[in-house]
């Protein structure tokens, strides 16, 4: 409820503009509101907007540059050069690529049974480190203190614009 109100408050100007546009050319207002969320979610994901993350059990929060989602969940993130003759790792990112298919499809993660994220499960995992199959994610992933609105925006970005 709070999240919906936060989002509505934050998107009010966009929604008004979208409503005017809809009246003139028939576009649904919800589309414009979604676009604003997606842009905010993208900024949070890429680190253009800061996220407050803390390693589980630590006293101090990490600097924003160390807690960006993109640091670990992007293709080609974090690859050490492998000496000649050594086996190159199969994955190209440190952590799973967060596509809509990965998040919402039934996927077995961390040795747990197949599970799907929805927005609530996604936000719980970000805040507590407990995934939808009740498996705890790696300690290397910070736990995030973020508002419902920002979490919803991240979810919108990941599921609407990254098939």
């Amino acid at each position: 409820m709070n999240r919906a109100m936060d989002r509505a408050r934050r998107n009010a100007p966009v929604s008004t503009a979208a409503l005017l546009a809809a009246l003139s050319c028939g576009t649904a207002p919800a589309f414009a509101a979604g676009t604003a969320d997606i842009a905010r979610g993208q900024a949070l994901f890429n680190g253009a907007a800061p996220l407050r993350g803390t390693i589980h059990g630590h006293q101090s929060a990490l600097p924003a540059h160390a807690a960006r989602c993109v640091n670990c969940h992007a293709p080609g993130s974090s690859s050490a050069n492998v000496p000649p003759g050594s086996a190159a790792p199969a994955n190209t990112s440190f952590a799973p690529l967060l596509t809509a298919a990965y998040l919402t499809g039934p996927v077995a993660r961390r040795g747990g049974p197949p599970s799907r994220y929805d927005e609530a499960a996604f936000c719980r995992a970000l805040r507590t480190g407990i995934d939808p199959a009740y498996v705890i994610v790696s300690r290397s992933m910070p736990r995030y203190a973020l508002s419902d609105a920002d979490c919803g925006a991240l979810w919108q970005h990941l599921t609407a614009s990254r098939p």
Partner: protein
Amino acid sequence: MKRVNARHEHQVTRRRLLQAAASFAVLPCALRAARAHGSFGPAEPALAAPAMQLQAPQGSRVDLGARLRGRVTAVQLMFTGCSATCPIQGALFADAQQRLAHADARLQLLSISIDPLGDDLNALRMWLGKFGAESARWNALLPRIQDVDRLLDFLRGRAAGVDRHTAQAFVFDRQARLVYRTEDMPEPAELVGLMQRIAAR
């Protein structure tokens, strides 16, 4: 027949006793070995740092043992092209450095690159600068490519995946011996406390 059976039973009982005694004799050794070879916790017995030459950001070549001797050192593995765990490791050492601000100057932090193919001294200097490293407390070293696997094996710092290294801190005593492997991403206050306890020994 009865006597044969009795003797057989006696032999079985004796064998069992010997087996049990042997098990008890071996158990402490096995436990010690398990502790010494665990992936984190105290390294018992302490392990002398391997002989290897590394480059310091100032350009000089240093022997690892010589760089560690006389100080208590927390070592972390990293590389400057690492965007996942290394920024967090850097932030944790920066936090530890702050907590060590008024501590004995012989407590030091050392970041060792595992990627001599991708890293150079300038990249290491920039990486340290990004986290506000003060050279009196926190430095970085670059090993030779042929020494990377040896270092990973000695520390037990190898990890699957693209980063290739754990995010532990490896604590050495003043005799340049590895005495403790922390868990991944150690809490800076606890790391500093551990270093101070080792320094006080």
